[in-house]
């Protein structure tokens, strides 16, 4: 010991994982405002750089092991509502949660929201997220007018669907690998109230669900079904179908109508960090929960007034709910298969149910048309998302088997959820991958933008 330390500069290295808390990696993590990103990029070494939002993608999409990870600071009050058309320009680091608190009281709603409002605008674009309105209004990228993009060479460019369509669409769903999204102008939806008018129906099985959604979805702006993935036999696919639209002013009670755009969602509770390492998810607890969920739903109820939070973001009421899966974490398996592949969907649900993998409610959604982005996930068909504990016995074999079914049916997997699939599966599921790579290679020839996901799935390098 010679009393002085080596002159190695201290870098803020720390482990990062996705929402599933499965495969972490260690990176240099820097929080900074938009105008400092360019300078920070010069520090990026051979492992490159990546912008991370709120870390709600389930796998390794927002990790960059050994490299640089940037978190953009931005405040919702910097959002600018455009005077001429209902659109808003927002810093990329702002979350949908923060944005809603600003725009809902002014009579606007985000064009697309996923099942959590804790995602950033940058992340929403990079993952081209979808929501309950996909069947009519498409994914997030369909509602973006312009993106300010910091490119690998340090230049900043405003890309739009008309000015630089290839780069624009490569950035939509491009997992942050075309450049740093600094801000974006997105079209917003005028609303009269901050409430939802909701129809809820219990559906006895999968066949009835396909029929109900195919026949009735187009009458609703929003539609999603929660399936009990443990139901078997004649109950296979029993579900609660929830559909609705923003409530009109005349639908509200007089008391609520005084402040029709009131909006202030809050968390009821948060899961503490001290959950037992094995988690509290097991077959018994999950079966009880799923049974309760199905039973508590009304057989059929129409025009019920609900809050935005309870309709769109029920899980957000519990903070850090991913901790209930314990130290091993969880995966969310999400895929889409085209219309006409209902049998494949049935087989997947059967296998999940038969596997006994403890799984909370799965979400089934009917997608509408896809968009022009080569790596955008949604495509016309059925999508299923299901949470499974990462430590389940035989999970690898189950999921790799399901992958083959999905790919053989012409389906694919969602980057924002993926934590297990392979470069081969991505190549099959995304036939326009090379087109995307060509655009990326042009704007980032030296591979500055990288992530654990991009290396794992062969998107870069």
């Amino acid at each position: 010991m010679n009393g002085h330390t080596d002159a190695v500069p201290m870098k803020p290295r720390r482990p990062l994982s996705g929402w599933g808390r499965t495969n972490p990696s260690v990176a240099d993590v820097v929080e900074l405002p938009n105008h400092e990103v360019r300078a920070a990029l010069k520090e990026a070494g051979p492992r490159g750089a990546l912008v991370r939002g709120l870390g709600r993608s389930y796998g390794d999409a927002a990790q960059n092991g050994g490299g640089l990870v940037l978190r953009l600071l931005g405040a919702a009050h910097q959002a600018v509502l455009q005077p001429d058309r209902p659109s808003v320009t927002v810093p990329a680091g702002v979350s949908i949660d923060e944005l809603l608190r600003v725009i809902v009281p002014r009579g606007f709603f985000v064009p697309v929201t996923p099942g959590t409002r804790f995602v950033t605008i940058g992340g929403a674009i990079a993952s081209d997220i979808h929501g309950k309105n996909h069947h009519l209004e498409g994914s997030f990228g369909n509602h973006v007018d312009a993106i300010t993009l910091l490119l690998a060479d340090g230049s900043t460019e405003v890309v739009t669907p008309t000015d630089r369509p290839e780069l624009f669409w490569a950035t939509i769903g491009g997992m942050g690998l075309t450049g740093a999204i600094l801000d974006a102008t997105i079209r917003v939806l005028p609303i009269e109230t901050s409430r939802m008018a909701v129809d809820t129906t219990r559906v006895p099985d999968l066949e009835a669900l396909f029929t109900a959604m195919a026949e009735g979805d187009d009458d609703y702006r929003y539609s999603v079904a929660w399936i009990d993935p443990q139901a078997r036999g004649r109950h296979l696919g029993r579900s609660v179908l929830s559909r609705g639209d923003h409530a009109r002013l005349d639908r509200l009670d007089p008391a609520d109508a005084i402040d029709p755009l009131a909006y202030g969602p809050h968390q009821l509770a948060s899961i503490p960090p001290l959950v037992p390492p094995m988690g509290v998810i097991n077959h018994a607890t999950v079966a009880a929960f799923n049974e309760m969920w199905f039973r508590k739903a009304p057989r059929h109820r129409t025009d019920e007034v609900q809050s935005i939070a309870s309709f769109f973001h029920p899980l957000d009421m519990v903070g850090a709910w991913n901790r209930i899966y314990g130290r091993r974490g969880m995966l969310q398996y999400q895929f889409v298969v085209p219309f006409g592949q209902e049998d494949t969907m049935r087989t997947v649900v059967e296998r999940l149910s038969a596997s006994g993998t403890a799984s909370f409610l799965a979400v089934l959604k009917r997608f509408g048309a896809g968009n022009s982005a080569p790596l955008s996930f949604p495509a016309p068909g059925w999508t299923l998302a299901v949470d499974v504990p990462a430590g389940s016995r035989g999970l690898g074999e189950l999921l790799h088997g399901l992958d083959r079914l999905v790919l053989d049916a012409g389906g694919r997997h969602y980057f924002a959820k993926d934590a297990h699939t392979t470069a081969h599966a991505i190549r099959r599921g995304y036939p326009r991958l090379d087109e995307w790579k060509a655009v990326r290679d042009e704007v980032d020839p030296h591979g500055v933008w990288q992530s654990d996901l991009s290396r794992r799935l062969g998107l870069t390098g």
Partner: protein
Amino acid sequence: MDNALGEPQTMLLLGGTSDIGLAIVRELLTPAARTVVLACRDVDKGERAAAGLRHDGLTVAVVAFDGAATDTHEQLITDVVAAHGDIDLAIVAFALLGDGPSTITDVAAAAEIAEVNFTGTVTATIAVANAMRTQGHGGIVMLSSVAGERVRSANPVYGGTKAGIDGFAQGLGDGLASQGVHVLVVRPGFVHSSMTAGRAAAPFATTPEKVAEVTAKGLRAGRRTVWAPGLLRYVFMALRHTPGPVWRRLPLG
């Protein structure tokens, strides 16, 4: 990058013809695996092992590796990373068993075992650890042995090197944890393999496949030490605390 199921994409086996090492590789091969690199002294034997592993979608490369040539280890790892990208899992499985009785008296033979088993293991592992620190993730499986838990008079050189690398790997692993790198120390008992062919089996003898199963389970569970078979943990807990006069009289071969 390991996926969320703990399935490695790229594995490096140092000691590429080791029965236990190859069994661990086979146990961890999944559709997620893309590359296996077998680093071994006997390249021809390595090629035969590679032929047994190869299948559609899996690249198996064989590279020359000499455990005793410690000054080549860093370059070897650099080359592997340059050719195949991140190393998700490295299995350190090379060692010389030596002929117990002669190593006690043969200085040259003892030196060779000490050089390969200890110095070579340390240099190769540090080279791997450096690469993994740079990539911010990775796993190292260190093949230790119960022989290092309490060294027997019958083969003190081998046992001594295993005691050394066991301690080395634990200390290294504790320091690497915060760097995203996980080290698992595996302590098998007597394993029926080509290394022990022709020797009398000790109690609780096991097979490379069983050791591989225990290793895979330990990796998935995030353990830092596993024993194969698991019962040996308790056997050696007792043996470790057996008074010397009793220990020396035990018929341990």
